[in-house]
């Protein structure tokens, strides 16, 4: 044989990924071959089976012992953190998919122009696009790949596999179509712009190191002299691409628009899954590849983290739309998480930070999905009642729902005995141990500011009199009710007895990232 050895691919380790993508492809096939009335009843089980099966596969991989070597010729690292993040993404995806199951959120025919007879026909025909399922699966697979990519190229591909379906999904809201389509366009244009930055950064880093594998870049940091400009600019541009995805300031502008415009179940998926995946990628790039360059990127990251926390907290105050407010809160949370990213040091310190971040991601992700699930249930004639003023007096109208939502908000604010508190504590503790005390102080101050707008919503819900024509609470579908229940339960359990999950995160973090 001349030359090319077939690469070894550890199918066992990659099976969770492959299953998700496989399910997505089967979804497309169903779209192609199944008649319309059957599609939804086929798609939903396929999607759920894919996700549950993938989660089971993750567990199997864990049972068989966390691999110590990167899979697929070093392209994908299935290490402790990656497996943990996969599990988290799959859980979040699973509960988001339960939300996505709600037809009422999605457009019946994306191609029909709003207000035309075609659209009316499509709505009358009932149902929504069932393409959302395979699209969501592709996005989820992309998220998983993004968090485990051990090579910038794979990371870039994963970034796009994750983003492209999301761009489309954003434009599929049934109500407020223009808003949704605008969100889609904005997300797409800005997302493509940022991924171009990521790519150029990757090119420059490749120019410096001669390789795009994270381990190779790390090696090159030591061995290659000169050409530092390439590396620094490249790092910066990589950072732009990644920070955009996590919505860190000053690249946060898309988040509120997109969160507001997108169909709420998709917002839930984005706000939870994408953030988790993007942090996985950020950690990999900045710790694994550029770990030895921390003296150069850390100051910038300090600035970004501070800006993100402050911007998220302060801008959220002025919001009048519940989804925009949650978007800004998500920005602020991204800032809190960044403090953990910055707090690197010796190996033990890294493990500590990683543990904190992983736990935070779980806690925040689940609560976020729950919060958006509640948002889907508060409706008036025009669909979801997004404007905050419409939420006035909800606590009187529907104490249980408002109570749960208030609880989620308190978790966002980081009040003790909610999951958010331990998340924040874990990250801040790591940051303090890593010597980032000023950052933590900024963090707590902005948490206090952030608490203001969470509390404001609670005030509106509980302490204001309900408007006479206020929104109705939709009778939740089993899926939506389940999501809210799961999220609330998780928020409580993680707030009272977080030890098991913390232990898991610790185990996952203890191996750190493999190179």
């Amino acid at each position, binding site marked *: *044989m*001349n*030359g*090319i050895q*077939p690469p070894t691919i550890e199918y066992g380790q990659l099976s969770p990924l492959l299953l998700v993508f496989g399910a997505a*492809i089967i979804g*497309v*096939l169903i*779209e*192609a*071959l199944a008649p319309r009335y059957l599609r939804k009843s086929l798609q939903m089980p396929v999607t759920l089976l894919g996700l549950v099966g993938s989660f089971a596969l993750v567990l199997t991989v864990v049972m068989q012992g966390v691999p110590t070597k990167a899979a697929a010729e070093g392209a994908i690292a299935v290490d402790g953190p990656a497996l943990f993040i996969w599990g988290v993404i799959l859980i979040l995806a699973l509960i988001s998919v339960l939300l996505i199951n709600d037809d009422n959120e999605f457009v019946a025919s994306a191609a029909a122009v709003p207000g035309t007879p075609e659209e009316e026909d499509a709505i009358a025909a009932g149902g929504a696009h069932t393409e959302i399922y395979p699209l969501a699966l592709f996005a989820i697979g992309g998220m998983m790949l993004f968090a485990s990519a051990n090579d910038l190229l794979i990371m870039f591909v994963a970034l796009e596999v994750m983003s492209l379906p999301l761009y489309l999904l954003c434009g599929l809201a049934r109500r407020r179509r223009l808003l949704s389509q605008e969100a889609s366009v904005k997300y797409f244009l800005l997302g493509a712009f940022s991924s171009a930055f990521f790519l150029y950064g990757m090119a420059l880093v490749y120019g410096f190191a001669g390789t795009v594998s994270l381990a190779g870049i790390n090696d090159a940091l030591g061995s290659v002299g000169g050409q530092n400009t390439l590396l620094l600019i490249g790092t910066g541009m990589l950072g732009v691409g990644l920070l955009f995805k996590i919505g860190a300031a000053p690249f946060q502008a898309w988040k509120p628009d997109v969160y507001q415009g997108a169909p709420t179940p998709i917002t839930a998926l984005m706000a939870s899954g994408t953030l988790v995946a993007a942090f996985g990628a950020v950690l990999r790039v900045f710790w694994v590849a550029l770990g030895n360059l921390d003296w150069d990127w850390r100051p910038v990251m300090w600035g970004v983290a501070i800006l993100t926390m402050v911007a998220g907290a302060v801008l959220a105050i002025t919001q009048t739309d519940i989804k925009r407010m949650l978007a800004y809160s998500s920005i602020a949370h991204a800032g809190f998480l960044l403090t953990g990213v910055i707090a690197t040091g010796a190996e033990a310190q890294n493990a500590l930070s990683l543990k904190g971040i992983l736990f935070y991601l779980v806690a925040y992700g689940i609560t976020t999905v729950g919060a958006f699930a509640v948002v889907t249930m508060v409706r008036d004639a025009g669909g979801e009642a997004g404007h905050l003023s419409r939420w006035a007096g909800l606590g009187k109208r529907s104490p249980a729902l408002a109570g749960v939502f208030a609880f989620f908000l308190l978790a966002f604010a980081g009040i003790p005995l909610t999951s958010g508190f331990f998340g924040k504590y874990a990250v801040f503790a790591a940051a303090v141990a890593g010597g980032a005390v000023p950052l933590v102080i900024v963090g707590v101050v902005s948490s206090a500011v952030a608490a203001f707008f969470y509390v404001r919503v609670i005030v509106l819900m509980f302490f204001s009199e309900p408007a006479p024509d206020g929104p109705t609470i939709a009778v939740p579908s089993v899926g939506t009710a389940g999501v809210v229940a799961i999220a609330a339960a998780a928020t409580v359990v993680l707030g009272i007895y977080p030890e098991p999950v913390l232990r898991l995160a610790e185990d996952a973090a203890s191996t750190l990232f493999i190179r």
Partner: protein
Amino acid sequence: MELYVPILVLAVLAAGFAIFSLTIAPFTGPKRWNRAKLDAYECGIEPTPQPVGGGRFPLKYMITAMLFIVFDIEIIFLYPWAVAFDALGVFGLIEMLLFIVTVLVAYAYVWRRKGLDWD
């Protein structure tokens, strides 16, 4: 690089010839102004005013363009694979089969959604 020099030479020749023809045409031909002659030709009816910027294209062509891009990319992958087929062997075959099947899935979807139909 040297491989491309001859192409450049030929290109210069062809372009030179074409541009020469373009430039010489106004001098060799007569000039007789005629309003109707300079209107857009529309089988004798009054020309439809065309918007500045060329107006809009029917959506159909966009879809064709998108599909073209997708399949062109597929071709781009097929060529190196075909060239290196002997070296890649069965592994390459299986991989390419998977790839083509994946594309075919999307293709089947487009087909069923009438993306390939013209009216």
